């Protein structure tokens, strides 16, 4: 073992910053106190962050519900709106019922002449 025996033993090649050990006790005590902060107060900020994320998601979802239908084309909008499509379907059923009555043009003209409809009413209907 002659080659390394006692050759490098005495001189320590490693150094520390000046006065490193003087401040170490306080650093260690600070780290211990920081580490001892109860788990509850560490969870609280995490819960807060989670609540903020959830609230943001709800807001983005709400905005999406309003903005996306407006951006769609008018045809899709009618199909997308349930109350409007119900009205269209109801009118279609009424026209189909008239076809079933098998009325001639003459019957229709007679029916209209019996009604007291004046020009003002027609304009108002428009």
């Amino acid at each position: 073992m002659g080659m390394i025996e006692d050759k490098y033993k005495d001189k320590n090649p490693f150094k520390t910053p000046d006065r490193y050990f003087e401040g170490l006790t306080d650093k260690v005590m600070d780290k211990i106190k920081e580490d001892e902060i109860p788990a509850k107060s560490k969870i609280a900020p995490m819960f807060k962050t989670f609540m903020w994320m959830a609230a943001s998601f709800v807001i983005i979802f709400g905005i999406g519900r309003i903005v996306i239908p407006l951006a769609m084309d008018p045809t899709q909008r009618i199909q997308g709106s349930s109350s409007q499509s119900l009205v269209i379907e109801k009118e279609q059923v009424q026209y189909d019922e008239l076809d079933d009555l098998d009325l001639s043009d003459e019957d229709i003209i007679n029916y209209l002449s019996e009604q007291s409809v004046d020009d003002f009413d027609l304009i108002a209907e428009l």
Partner: protein
Amino acid sequence: MQDKEIIEMFSDASTRDEAFKLIVQNYQERLYWHIRKIVLSHHDTDDVLQNTFVKVWKGLKNFRWDAGLYTWMYRIATNESLNYLNDKKRRGFGSGDDVEDILLSNLEADEYFDGDEIQKQLQRAIIKLPEKQRIVFNMKYFDDMKYSEISEILETSVGALKASYHHAVKKIEETLRLSEV
């Protein structure tokens, strides 16, 4: 003040901080140099030493005198150092994937290494050793610890330690001889 008295102080909540400060002051330098020889860079040593003391604080409430306080703390410091290096390896620090690469890079980059080229060569040769041999060599060669003390800290038989040290010396000599050629 003896370790036993300090531990008694620690068990009393009103004097716990004061007792622990005494423990830090009494052991900080010895533990620092033990850790420094394992991880090599000052900054890593500072991290590991603080983690060691946090572990000591947590474990001291349940400390039993199966081993001395000093032996127990040395064991924690050794484990923390090795875990720190393995954790660094897992996170992909250093130029390669091995602890050896991490240690080489620690040695080259450490602004608090003040040795000459021969001392650097010795450190490079130590880095090449397997983990256990490296620790045994440092404790025996630099810290001049007794095999019985090292045996308690590393929980390894004296015979196995002697063999580890012998192999370590042979390998270091061989590495140094090759580097001189």
